[in-house]
């Protein structure tokens, strides 16, 4: 179980969000543009300061303001898909996906990265650089890379927005399989009803920084 009690600031308004996500399930974070949805993901990943609150996964405490615990981003078991993909421009697709697997021997790393590219349906572009890929291919590389680390918490920011209907549905179901199989707690920021229907089991609405669970 992942839980977060986040209190912080972004721009002009305060963020106050209480989230809990069961392992193996996904929560959709919805709301108008500029409501702070991406900031909530960044807070969980350790990329945006949290003023007070807690972030926990199971018995692991990632952030606790009262106990002065604040793990670095690399110490939190997260996989994050950024809205603009944030691929490494000087690495090939397989290099990007293999990046979080540096602890493995090179052959095993490449094999594992290749499996993920196959899963995402983009093994044919393994040796291509991000600048040579289409928007949809980049997005699939970003998803495969985030899953490569086998994270406890998966943070997806508009993860399927560049994909056509069929490809989006295929990747959505693959991500749902991974979430269930690896007991990942997932939070997806989305405007797409297909993500809410096809991936999420609960929905939280964020308005001007305040989170509210929807029935």
């Amino acid at each position: 179980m992942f839980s977060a009690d986040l209190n912080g600031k972004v721009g002009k308004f305060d963020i106050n969000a209480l989230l809990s996500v069961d392992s193996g399930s996904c929560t959709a974070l919805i709301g108008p543009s500029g409501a702070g949805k991406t900031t909530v993901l960044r807070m969980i990943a350790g990329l945006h300061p949290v003023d007070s609150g807690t972030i926990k996964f199971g018995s692991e405490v990632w952030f606790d303001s009262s106990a002065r615990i604040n793990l670095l981003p690399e110490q939190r078991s997260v996989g994050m898909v950024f809205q603009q993909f944030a691929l490494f421009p000087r690495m090939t697709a397989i290099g990007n996906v293999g990046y979080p697997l540096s602890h493995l021997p090179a052959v095993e790393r490449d094999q594992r990265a290749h499996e993920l590219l196959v899963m995402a349906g983009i093994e044919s572009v393994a040796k291509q650089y991000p600048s040579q890929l289409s928007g949809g291919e980049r997005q699939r590389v970003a998803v495969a890379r985030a899953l490569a680390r086998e994270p406890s918490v998966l943070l997806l920011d508009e993860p399927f927005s560049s994909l056509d209907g069929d490809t989006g549905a295929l990747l959505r179901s693959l991500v749902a399989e991974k979430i269930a199989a690896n007991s990942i707690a997932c939070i997806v920021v989305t405007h797409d009803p297909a993500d809410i229907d096809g991936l999420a089991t609960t929905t939280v609405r964020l308005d001007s920084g305040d989170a509210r669970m929807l029935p």
Partner: protein
Amino acid sequence: MSFTAKRIGLQLFLWTCLTLLLLFLAIPVVAILTASTPNELIRSLQDEVAIDALLLSLRCTLIALLIILLVGTPTAWLLATRSFRGRSALTTVIELPLVLPPAVAGLALLAAFGPLGLFGGFFESAGIRLVLETAGVIVALVFVASPFYVRQAQAAFAAIDRETLEASRTLGAGEGRTFLHVAVPTAAGGLGSGAALAWARALGEFGATLMFAGSLQSITQTAPLAVYDLFGTNLVGAEALAAVLIACSAALLLVSKLSLQRSGYGDVQR
């Protein structure tokens, strides 16, 4: 005057300015390259003074460049990725040698590291001599050339999309690995351009080296100092060395420009 006539007049004015400036800058360079016949130039380059000076220049500038890269790259990363009080003042101090008169730079180095300088006693007790020594040449080169690299490297690191670096951290990489495996390759074009500029500046350095390290053949007499030395006794020899320096500077400037052009992500080849 009609609109068309005004437009033609403006075009004529702009192109005239360009032509005048181009001629003014290019004619002295062409004049040096054509002052002596190729045979005379080649014969002059076989002179012991010229060979010593060129080899010393190559050795000293390469060592200086290595020091600049090793210390300047992390410095540029720090300045590009951290906000802290006094950062602008710190950057100004690092960039100061860009605008210092070379003789003043030499004098400043003497005041700091010379035998009677601020740290002269420390270096003397450590058995390190800089004045009139090859090490002094390297110190002078690092002093005048490092801002050229740090400035360019800082801009290259600052231009990296922040989310690219953040993505690396969320994938389990600490700052060190992010710096080495993501930031440096991404900024490689800018870093290469800065390194070429710094190398070119070091290769052409004259005043600070002369003031701080002197001009002793095969010890501290780099190619620009040898040009000055030969000027009074062997004009063709001076012109030959000058021609080599022009060629090297032009090549480094070209490398710098090409590196910057290639720093766009779109031209990464398989």
